[in-house]
């Protein structure tokens, strides 16, 4: 879009309804105006984008998946859109920033309000290369009843929405509903059937959402190939043995030691190798695979 489409009032940039990106204009109830904050050109809103949303109180697993998806999708050139909330949203933004990609945060309050306060710094980093947008005038306070409306913009800006962990009545499911109504693709990350945090996503899957099993599932939709993903690192024998064992699920270091009969020294070297390669992460005393090798 040309710079002429952007009206400046002081430092606040905004888009009128007719200047909105095509995808967003198509939804049932497009916002009359969209206020923008950040260093990026508005053009980023026209780029192929994917939404990653989910529970605020997510599990470590959910946080790691959101971050990995944000990182890999952004690395492949997609714009990652989310809601700047705690948990999955924040991790998705962080993942995109990790990859040096572009990410857009849609707020349910004025773009000058840092909400949640804990994400002030994250919002600032998003603004360096991406945008923080909202349909509300600057200065509008965050309020719970504004968040569902915000979700329709998240779904509207993107061709696909990925839900990472959602409880039975999660706001992320509202985003999914909007996406389905607007005829966009909905992916859900499968979770353990016993976990409360997966009831929402698993129900979506049962209703026909596409299960997300790897980043490629999303990239395929956009006709992209896994972009600047680093080539699979060549692993040492020990590291390969460890990741094979970890592929069955998260285990503690002690359990790994017993299963592999490795001495603490070599075990530590193998785990450090996998951690530094970004393949494995430790959380709450258990190691788990965060990125499948190769």
């Amino acid at each position, binding site marked *: 879009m040309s710079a002429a489409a952007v009206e400046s009032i002081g430092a606040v940039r905004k888009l009128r309804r007719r200047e909105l990106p095509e995808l967003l204009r198509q939804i049932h109830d497009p916002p009359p105006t969209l206020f923008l904050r950040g260093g990026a050109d508005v053009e980023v809103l026209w780029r192929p984008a994917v939404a990653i949303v989910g529970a*605020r*109180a997510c599990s*470590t697993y959910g946080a790691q998946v959101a971050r990995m998806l944000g990182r890999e999708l952004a690395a492949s050139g997609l714009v990652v859109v989310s809601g700047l909330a*705690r*948990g999955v949203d924040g991790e998705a933004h962080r993942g995109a920033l990790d990859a040096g990609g572009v990410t857009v945060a849609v707020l349910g309050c004025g773009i000058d309000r840092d909400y949640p306060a*804990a994400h002030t710094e994250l919002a600032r980093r998003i603004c360096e290369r991406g945008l923080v947008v909202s349909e509300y005038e600057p200065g509008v306070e965050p309020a719970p009843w504004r968040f569902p409306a915000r979700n329709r913009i998240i779904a509207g800006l993107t061709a696909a929405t990925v839900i990472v962990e959602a409880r039975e009545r999660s706001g992320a499911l509202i985003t999914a509903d909007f996406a389905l109504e607007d005829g966009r693709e909905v992916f859900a990350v499968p979770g353990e059937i016993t*976990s*409360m945090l997966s009831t929402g996503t698993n129900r979506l899957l049962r209703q026909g959402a596409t299960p997300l099993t790897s980043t490629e599932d999303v990239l395929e939709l956009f006709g992209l190939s896994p972009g600047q993903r680093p080539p699979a690192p060549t692993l040492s024998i020990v590291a390969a043995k460890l990741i094979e064992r970890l592929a069955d699920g998260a285990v*503690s*270091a*002690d*359990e790994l*030691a017993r299963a592999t009969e490795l001495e*603490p*020294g*070599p075990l*530590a*070297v193998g*785990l*450090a*190798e996998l*951690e*530094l390669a*970004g393949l494995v*992460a*430790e*959380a*709450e*005393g*258990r190691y788990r695979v965060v990125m499948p090798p190769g």
Partner: protein
Amino acid sequence: MLARTITHALVGLDARSVEVEAHLEDGVPAFAIVGLPDRACQEAKQRVRSGIASAELMWPGRRLTVNLAPAELRKEGSGFDLPIALAVLAASRQVTEESLRGHAAVGELALDGRIRPVTGVLAAAEGAKEQGLSRLFCAAASAPEAALAGIEPVPLHHLAEAASYLRGEWHPEPFDELDELPAPEGLPDLADVRGQERARRALELAAAGGHNLLLAGPPGTGKTMLARRLPGILPPLTREEALEVTRIHSVAGLLPPGRPLVTAPPFRAPHHTASAPAIVGGGSGPRPGEASLAHRGVLFLDELAEFPRPTLEALRQPLEDGVISIARVEGKAVFPARFQLVATMNLCPCGAKGDPAAECSCSTQRLAAYRDKLSRALLDRFDLLVTVPRPRALELAAAPSEASELVRERVVAARERVRERRPHRTGAADELLSRAVERLPLSARGRARVARVSATVAALAGAEAVEPEHLAEALSFRTPNELAAA
């Protein structure tokens, strides 16, 4: 008629010489104590009067004034009873003043004339020794403690014995002097801990390197049980260290009867409701807090996040300098506090986080508040951080593991090796560390901590240099992301 005795008042651990002057003059019989005595010291009047009478000595029926000099120093406690009684006996010429020369005295009187032990005898005896005095009157139970200072104690059961001794009619029985350090006993053993190899390993590293250790994890995984076993694998105290610890414990009145010297590294576990002065020390006549009582041992803070923030912040000075100084009108009291900090915490307020069998019910706000409690600055003091997962049932059924004694031998050997020559990193280990700083959330302080721990790992392994495998193990004990990202 005037007579003097010497005793010592304690400011912190410092013994200040106090001259007890007793003056008798004609006039209406009266008894006054001047020289800033506190309540307990003021009450010495009644005890001294009854004690002297019970010892079948004579109470001078004249006007008696006792002055405790220097007058501006506050005198606290009942240890002044014995020196006051001796000064009165000398002033009333029941013993000669010459016979008191070269003697100091400390002790409480019972109404029947018996001598009771008081706190801080070691520090007082050291003060007397420093002043060039050769003998110290004290309760028989305190004699072994006084002897540690290198002064010759005159162990007394009763005030009458003191009078007989000063008249040259009686000599005290010899007491059991402590020739060698008795081995510490009764410490809980690591053999009781089944499984949990990684946590045991962290404990061994903490002991070998003197590192502060944070055990995180859901409740009921044995964090507290592990922490209590750290003193048992620490090297035994040297004589010098034992004296330092004993001095503090004596002032606090914590020496168990019959054990004049503390030889086991102390283990102090204040509850999280304890006030900041209770932990770092304080009071008008400053008293050592838990941090000083843990000197040369372990200060254990169970449920670290439950401690009030000001208390935790107050611990930063001793963690940095190994001393606590408390300023008071009488001057500054300095207590040593070179302890090893061991703490436990749950991963969330409800405790379910990290437990696969439970679901965490904490709101994000509560979680954030929980983590905010632990400032970065405080978390930075922990070189070793280990998350203790819930052990599997089969682990608990495993055979008993290695006993503390064997672990301690390795710890002692590692400490000696580090003392001789601190292992340096090889090029390969250096490279791994640089890569870790690049790839992991690892601050400059975090890097320094990993480097420190890796030297300990190498020393424990008996290696000449820090190899990548030592560094990798040190890396695995760094602050986990879920705490670092608070």
